[in-house]
């Protein structure tokens, strides 16, 4: 049963990936005006150069041919930036670990803070601690991450001079970006943990655990939290996309090399091959992370089959 379910899920990704790749490969044609002129911008390319780039990108060929060519170029490393002429896939793979590192660290930060707030809120329901935890969560989803980043840079790098502000490198440079990226997740995790814990705390097995004479703390953190965790796992998998989104802004503000910044720079420079390659690769990563989340979820709890 499980293999059939997994096979079905994997197969379902194929048409989605097909649609994404078609749209991405042909997206230059959706720009109003001549895409090559848009790409060359104000640099004042001659008519000859424009024709040359048009031919290089294969824009003069029929659409299906362009699609196949795009995939082939992507696979063989011939899809190159029109500015730096570097292969897009290689650039993406070089930068991906940076972004992944940022995403994973911030997820850990978010889980620790979110869980703490969620459990405190659930075990002190309707007290000021509850309101406080939820208020922190609310603020987390409402504050723009680019502004939070600027504020933290101002406080910790400019005023106090405790931490470096921008760039990439040691763990110290990860603290501020990871905190900013974690804030949105904190709110979501805290709210979910709280909602689930409130439900779980009503269960009979919690009463049993209490009547056995277990200390309240081990009832809460051991029994209740563990059972409230499951929905959180899915959320975290699904939120991987949000982390990638957030990384786009965080990397830009903190001047950290990564795929987010690669994409933003490419978009600002109208470097379409880079945008195309990076968007398709990111969508692929995202689809497979979601797939893995679904599958692991169904393995953890066999009752769940979508």
């Amino acid at each position: 049963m499980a293999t059939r379910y997994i096979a079905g899920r994997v197969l379902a990704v194929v048409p989605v990936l097909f649609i994404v790749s078609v749209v991405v490969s042909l997206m230059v044609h959706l720009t109003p005006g001549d895409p090559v002129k848009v790409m060359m911008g104000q640099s004042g390319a001659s008519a000859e150069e424009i024709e040359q780039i048009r031919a290089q990108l294969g824009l003069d060929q029929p659409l299906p041919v362009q699609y196949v060519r795009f995939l082939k170029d992507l696979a063989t490393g011939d899809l190159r930036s029109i500015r730096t002429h570097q292969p897009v896939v290689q650039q993406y793979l070089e930068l991906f670990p940076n972004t992944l590192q940022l995403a994973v660290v911030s997820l850990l930060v978010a889980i620790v803070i979110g869980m703490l707030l969620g459990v405190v809120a659930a075990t002190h329901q309707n007290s000021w601690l509850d309101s406080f935890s939820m208020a922190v969560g609310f603020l987390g989803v409402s504050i723009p991450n680019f502004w939070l980043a600027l504020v933290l840079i101002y406080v910790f790098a400019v005023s106090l001079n405790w931490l470096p502000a921008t760039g990439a490198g040691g763990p110290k440079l990860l603290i501020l970006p990871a905190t900013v990226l974690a804030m949105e997740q904190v709110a979501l995790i805290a709210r979910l943990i709280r909602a689930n814990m409130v439900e779980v705390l009503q269960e009979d097995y919690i009463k049993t655990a209490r009547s056995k004479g277990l200390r309240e703390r081990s009832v809460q953190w051991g029994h209740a939290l563990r059972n409230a965790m499951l929905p959180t796992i899915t959320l975290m998998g699904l939120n991987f996309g949000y982390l990638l989104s957030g990384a786009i802004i965080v990397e830009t503000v903190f001047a950290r090399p990564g795929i987010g910044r690669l994409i933003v720079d490419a978009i600002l420079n109208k470097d379409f091959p880079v945008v195309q390659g990076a968007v398709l690769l990111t969508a692929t990563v995202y689809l497979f992370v979601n797939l893995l989340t679904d599958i692991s979820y169904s393995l953890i709890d066999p009752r769940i089959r979508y």
Partner: protein
Amino acid sequence: MASATVNAGEAIAGKTGDKRVDALARTEGRRDRRALRRLAQHKSAAIGFGIIVVLIVLALAASFIVPYDPIGLSRNVLQPPSRDHVMGTDNLGRDIFSRVLYGTRISLQMGFIAIAIAATVGTTMGVVAGAYGGLVDNVLMRFIDALMAVPGILLALTVAAVLGAGLYTAMVAVGIAWIPSFARIVRSLVLQVKEMPYIEAARSLGSNDSRLIWRHVLPNALTPVLVLSSLGVGSAILIGAALSFLGVGAQPPTAEWGIMLSEGRQFMRSAWWVMAFPGLAITVTVLAANLVGDGLRDALDPRIKL
């Protein structure tokens, strides 16, 4: 689905004059009023709603209130907050208070227009997919999956890059990023409603498809679409400001909060006020929108988990 039963009730009552069904419809009226009362008693939602109303008034009256031209330059550059300039001035001598106030217009427009686009297109897609099923459903939903495979801000960034930078293309871009949420929730509702016995009853009484959709399906979708819209406005304002911050949204010298932040960051060291107030403005606006959305969800349909 309590409201579903009642619409059925109304439909049948209209034709057969069944007293019991009329009574049922009246109960529903009371339930709506009860939902309104619940909303009024929701303290944080009331606060959020109050802030939004104030912001709308400020946005409408901005040209009467502002002490200075929001894009008018002056010699008084980077002045700290004072009696003449309550929020100080920026590097071009523009009054920050006036710019923040004008920015309210743009951000509220961004939130409402983007979500209106998403709600209209998404609801239509959801209704069509759910009502017709089969191949239509399959194709539409794969497109929605494809949209969802590119996480939020990356999708908006890509659309903005393709359509060209600008405030209105940014609104469209943010709207497109929100289409999947509406399409999916409306589709699942249509699927639920389709199975209701009263749909069969209405059909056997001679209702055609479009009448069924307008009279019975859409009224049921209203509550979740409203809740999702109100939750979406805050996020749309955030993404819109982020696009402008990154340079693909509204363009300088427009008085827009994201632009003000991206311009102000260079002067962080010497003039904190340049980036403090626009960021605060975004946070307050988004927080208010989120509070209203949260309250609406609790009051109208506590079962919807978004």
